[in-house]
């Protein structure tokens, strides 16, 4: 095996591994990664979302077993201290030595801390790692308790404004301090900066430009910043985000060539002055420049991987620094050369102070070529402009149409993404061209947008190119004459949502009606249960109706087990049960000799009941106050809870009571797939609410509502929908969310997958559920309330009706039970006899 050691486990180091193992020939190489941080590589670009509720795991770039699955050795919390280039070894702070054939330095950068007197004082932080953020959060909490309200951010660049957003999210008033006369001096001109400043100041974020900080005031902890001219800004915390400095220590100690202002010098193959040592990302000095953006870092990773595997790919001479992002809610983009101004070039500027929009494009005097530009407030033109710029496409007769839109009734300047050349790079983070996207569909490697994302990785970086990729996929499919549609089965040319609407609008109530009017054939095991479920969702029909068109478990209101016997699960809402009811369950289990087990949903499952015995068992349970637990249905299962503040000394609210209320509200609710809930009384999260389709966690000032999580084969943490809301609002949002899911999800699609596929994602869902962007919340609430009000226990229905009871016998011509069923003993209980 040839040994490749990667030093640094940031975004670029991770990308190197990903690219490397995707290339042919990698099998002969063993990759070992060293990271000094204690965790797997995470998404530093979206670091500020950590304050908005994302966890370190949410930000992680890979799953926990990714490295193992790909045969990569990952060593976290281990710092490389030295390189012995002659012996080709590295040395770690744990006094270990490893040999390498190739070494890849992806150590990235550290926050640049300007040499200001007093930066070592308490309350001064840098903004770089998750550990930094944890420290900032803890300190903010502490000073807020003491009444502090003001915090400063040093640096008005991209990172500085990100940090200001973080401070803002922590509930402090941010003051952005910048040495230059404008914000984002590398990307924006004065006009753009002014526009951005006025937008940001609307949020009570103060901007201090042209400020040179003399020293940090305060005895032990910071109390203020002293600027030139005896000008004091009183603040109780300072976050420094004033630029980056390459982590080139290893290059220095081992004698590699290093730039004057830092950075390991590399050639266009990403090789340092030692041909066996590569440097990529923010530590690499390429063409006298450090590139602090993700896209060039990823490209360097690809080049280095290719070079080590003896490929030919080299780094481009000029690296594009175009960027599009949302800063503190304001769209900002700049591309090409944003500032260029000379005799050959004209700048066209549009400024609208009323709506806060600033656009500038730089065009050659002959109006033929676009050289660069800036967008603030509305960057929706960015993708089109960037493509015109990077592909040197011809401009419309009046170049100003590019930012003002066509005003003469003529066609728009930039028609469709399909007009681009095949070489146009659509996803610059992953370097995916239009040709690659369209080809993958033409040659049938991919059929859907999702396939294209998986196959090409387009949109997986910053995500800015998603609309274009969607357009390309649709247009290519159309050009092939394909109308791609996910239909239910051969009997219906509709998807579930369409069929739901059709049934509702036409008021269909029987399977024959639905099949006869809008379907064909005789139905099947896919469409029949789906239609039954839709009837339940619309009319609250229980599974006692349309009996032979219910999924097999629903047909017998029980879960079929390995040997054809059934299990019985009475509802134990919130997992709360009295001693008397426990005794009833015990007595039933004893009488019918059932195997009993506690389930993951905090209730009790009784296994091994014969079909003929089901009604008798349920009669006893119902007579003693139990109800169906709907464990067999695609419906609400349980709402798990911790014991809550009635008993727990940490509890902040009454979680068990709330869980019971919710479980009783949504019990029997038929849905596209099963639904589970959880309620925890504090952030210790004993109810595992974030592993559920909906979860509530009590916090100071109310409940945080999380949605669309699940366990199972692909575990997903639920994401935050709303915070600090009261019980009533929780129920209102849950009604809307669940009903919207029931209306629109595909068959057997859990909430997490549904959200993943929902165009617009969580932001869109928030708009629908919280801000009522579709104007449907009233209808959703009414529908849900209707279902809640008409709930009936279907087992009670069944045992009270002799006609319904007929189905619970194994033979139609005999009262005997199935004599083929046999059991053997298992740990003092029983199990099916294996064949």
């Amino acid at each position, binding site marked *: 095996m040839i040994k490749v050691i990667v030093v640094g486990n940031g975004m670029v180091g991770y990308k190197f591994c990903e690219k490397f193992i995707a290339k042919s020939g990698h099998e002969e190489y063993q990759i070992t990664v060293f990271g000094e941080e204690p965790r797997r590589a995470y998404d530093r670009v979206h670091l500020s979302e950590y304050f908005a509720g994302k966890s370190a795991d949410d930000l992680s770039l890979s799953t926990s077993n990714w490295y193992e699955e790909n045969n990569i050795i990952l060593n976290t919390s281990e710092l490389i201290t030295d390189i012995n280039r002659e012996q080709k070894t590295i040395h770690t702070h744990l006094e270990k030595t490893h040999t390498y054939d190739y070494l890849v330095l992806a150590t990235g950068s550290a926050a640049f801390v300007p040499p200001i007197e007093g930066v070592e004082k308490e309350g001064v932080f840098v903004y770089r790692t998750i550990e930094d953020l944890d420290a900032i959060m803890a300190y903010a909490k502490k000073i807020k308790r003491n009444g502090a309200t003001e915090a400063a951010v040093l640096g008005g660049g991209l990172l500085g404004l990100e940090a200001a957003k973080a401070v803002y999210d922590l509930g402090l008033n941010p003051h952005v301090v910048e040495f230059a006369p404008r914000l984002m001096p590398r990307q924006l001109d004065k006009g753009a900066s002014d526009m951005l400043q006025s937008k940001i100041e609307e949020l009570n974020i103060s901007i201090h430009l042209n400020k040179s900080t003399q020293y940090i005031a305060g005895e032990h902890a910071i109390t203020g910043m002293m600027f030139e001219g005896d000008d004091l800004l009183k603040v109780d915390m300072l976050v420094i985000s004033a630029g980056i400095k390459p982590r080139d220590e290893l290059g220095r100690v081992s004698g590699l060539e290093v730039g004057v202002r830092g950075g390991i010098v590399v050639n266009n193959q990403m090789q340092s002055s030692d041909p066996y040592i590569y440097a990529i990302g923010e530590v690499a000095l390429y063409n006298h420049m450090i590139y602090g953006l993700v896209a060039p870092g990823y490209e360097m990773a690809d080049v280095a991987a290719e070079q080590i595997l003896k490929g030919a790919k080299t780094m481009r001479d000029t690296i594009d620094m175009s960027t599009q992002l949302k800063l503190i809610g304001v769209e900002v983009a700049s591309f090409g050369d944003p500032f260029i101004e000379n005799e050959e070039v004209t700048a066209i500027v549009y400024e609208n102070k009323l709506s806060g929009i600033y656009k500038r494009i730089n065009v050659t005097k002959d109006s033929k070529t676009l050289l660069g530009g800036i967008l603030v407030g509305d960057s929706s033109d960015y993708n089109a402009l960037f493509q015109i710029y990077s592909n040197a496409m011809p401009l419309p007769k009046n170049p100003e149409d590019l930012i003002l839109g066509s005003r003469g009734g003529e066609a728009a300047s930039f028609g469709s993404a399909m007009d681009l050349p095949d070489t146009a790079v659509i996803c610059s983070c992953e370097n995916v061209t239009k040709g690659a996207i369209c080809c993958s569909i033409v040659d049938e490697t991919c059929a859907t947008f999702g396939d294209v994302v998986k196959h090409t990785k387009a949109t997986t970086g910053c995500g800015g190119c998603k609309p274009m990729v969607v357009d390309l996929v649709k247009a290519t499919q159309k050009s092939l004459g394909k109308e791609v549609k996910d239909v239910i089965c*051969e*009997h219906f040319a509709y998807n579930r949502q369409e069929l739901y609407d059709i049934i509702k609008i036409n008021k269909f109530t029987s*399977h*024959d009606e639905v*099949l006869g009017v809008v379907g064909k*054939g*005789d*139905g*099947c*095991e896919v*469409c*029949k*249960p789906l239609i039954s479920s839709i009837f339940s969702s619309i009319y609250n029909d229980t599974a006692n109706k349309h*009996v*032979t*068109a219910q*999924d*097999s*478990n629903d*047909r*017998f209101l029980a879960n*079929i087990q*390995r*040997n*054809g016997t059934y299990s019985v699960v009475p509802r134990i809402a919130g997992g709360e049960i009295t001693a008397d009811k426990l005794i009833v369950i015990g007595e039933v289990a004893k009488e019918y000799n059932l195997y009993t087990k506690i389930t993951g949903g905090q209730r009790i499952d009784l296994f091994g009941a014969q079909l003929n015995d089901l009604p008798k068992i349920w009669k006893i349970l119902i007579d003693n106050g139990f109800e169906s637990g709907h464990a067999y249905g695609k419906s609400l299962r349980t709402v798990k809870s911790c014991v809550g503040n009635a008993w727990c000394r940490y509890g902040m609210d009454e979680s068990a009571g709330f869980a019971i209320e919710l479980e009783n509200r949504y019990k029997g609710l038929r849905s596209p797939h099963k639904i589970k809930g959880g309620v925890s009384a504090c952030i210790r999260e004993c109810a595992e609410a974030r592993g559920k389709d909906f979860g509530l966690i009590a916090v100071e000032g109310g409940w945080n509502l999380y949605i669309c999580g699940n366990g199972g084969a692909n575990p997903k943490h639920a994401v935050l929908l709303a915070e600090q809301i009261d019980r009533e609002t929780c129920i209102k949002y849950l009604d809307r969310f669940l009903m919207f899911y029931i209306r629109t999800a595909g068959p057997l699609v859990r909430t997490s997958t549904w959200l993943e596929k929902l165009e617009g994602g969580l932001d869109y869902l928030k708009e629908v559920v919280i801000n009522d962007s579709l104007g449907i919340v009233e209808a959703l609430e009414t529908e849900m309330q209707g279902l809640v009000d008409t709930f009936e226990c279907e087992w009670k229905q069944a045992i009270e009706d002799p006609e319904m009871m007929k*189905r619970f016998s*194994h*033979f*139609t*011509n*005999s009262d*005997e039970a*199935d004599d*083929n*069923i046999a059991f053997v003993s298992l740990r003092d209980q029983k199990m099916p006899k294996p*064949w």
Partner: protein
Amino acid sequence: MENILNQYETVNSDEVKVWFKAGKIADFPSNGGGCIKYKNKQIAIIKFDRRNEWYACQNLCPHKMEMVLSRGMIGSADDIPKIACPMHKKTFSLVDGSNLNGDDLKIATYPVKIVENEVFVGFLE
């Protein structure tokens, strides 16, 4: 287990020796199945109202050897009437018992006739 499975062999209507009275029409659910006992056999009887047809097959699913086919859901695939096992959704043609998911598993089918209000299944013995 093999001998249980071997009890079931397809019977064609022209070779029937015994017409067994399985019950009345009303004993079977609409567009669904019921299981009857005949000697030591379990037979699923399918009342396919939508097609106005009756079918019979072994109740034993040959996949995991459970007596459950009569509890399965019926339907059609390219107009072939079929039944789906409730355990793992293997589907079988009700006409010739062949497996429609493409495996080798096959089930035995039996002829059904209706006389007045009564349902009869045909066997060799």
